[in-house]
């Protein structure tokens, strides 16, 4: 779980679910919706790669296609589930009491704690691309909770912004994990300092190309790094969009 790696986009796990047949009660949309999931870590039917990264167990790059596509309401406990909407619109319903609509840039953190259900749907007939990150909590059976916020890629261009974790303006979660984003349209070199030397950092290229130390990442490539106090992030002339997860081991 805590060894460094480089994961190319095409090496990720891939599952495709239809809204008909055996998955019709789980997958929303009808009759022609498809849900595609690229997993960085083992999840569901994909069990051939990295088990996780530090406190993170799921990193799903998901595409909901077709009116009403997504996950019908289903149960959870304990996991802290974050969703980052990259494209389209996500309608999220949960048993904390929220009906929320999230557009590109919006994100949420749902802590299932002692028990909660959620529903994730793209109601319109346009593709929705969402990144789901699940992390272990630091305590079991916490009171369920939900928070949402927004990453404004224009206002926050060319600087590192912490979206989730212990930072001003970030959504707080009950875990020693920090999720940041860097969206740039100019060449940048940024020295990312980890807050503890035993922490690891996972960098996922949402768009564009970037160097993480000496490793070049293309679109949807990623790398996980341990045993480093600092990590160099370098972007080029073209637009680059990075999601950076720092986690306790």
């Amino acid at each position, binding site marked *: 779980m805590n060894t460094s790696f480089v994961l190319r986009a095409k090496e990720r796990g891939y599952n495709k679910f239809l809204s008909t047949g055996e998955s019709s009660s789980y997958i929303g949309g009808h009759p022609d919706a498809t849900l595609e999931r690229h997993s960085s870590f083992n999840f569901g039917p994909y069990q051939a790669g990295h088990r996780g990264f530090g406190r993170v167990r799921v990193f799903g790059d998901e595409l909901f296609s077709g009116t009403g596509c997504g996950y019908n309401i289903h*149960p959870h*406990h304990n*996991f802290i589930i974050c969703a980052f909407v990259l494209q389209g619109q996500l309608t999220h319903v949960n048993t904390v009491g929220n009906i929320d609509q999230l557009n590109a840039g919006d994100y949420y953190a749902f802590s299932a704690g*002692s028990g909660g259900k959620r529903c994730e749907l793209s109601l319109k007939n346009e593709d929705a691309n969402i990144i789901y990150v699940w992390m*272990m909590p630091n*305590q*079991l059976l*916490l009171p369920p909770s939900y928070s949402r916020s927004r990453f404004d890629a224009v206002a926050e261009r060319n600087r590192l912004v912490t979206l989730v974790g212990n930072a001003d303006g970030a959504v707080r979660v009950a875990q020693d994990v920090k999720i940041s984003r860097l969206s740039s349209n100019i060449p940048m070199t940024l020295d990312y300092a980890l807050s503890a030397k035993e922490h690891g950092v996972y960098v996922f290229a949402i768009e564009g190309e970037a160097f993480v130390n000496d490793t070049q990442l293309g679109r949807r490539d990623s790398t996980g790094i341990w045993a480093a106090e600092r990590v160099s992030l370098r972007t080029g002339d073209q637009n680059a969009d990075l999601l950076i997860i720092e986690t306790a081991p």
Partner: protein
Amino acid sequence: MSVEPFKRWMCLGCGFLYDEALGSAEHGLAAGTRWADIPADWVCPDCGTPKRLFEMVEIPYAPGQPVRRLSA
């Protein structure tokens, strides 16, 4: 002979928690049932994830949890 402490297992499909100390009476598992004694073909009662895709966790409970306690 020392007695092995009770352990907790979490479903990686949904987060369902199985605590050996508590068992899961509603699913036919008496308090004290060890993970190793649950059949290999057992699946998560909430989401159907196979037993082999649970992870043993050493995460403490939140204050006031678990609500269900072992009877004296």
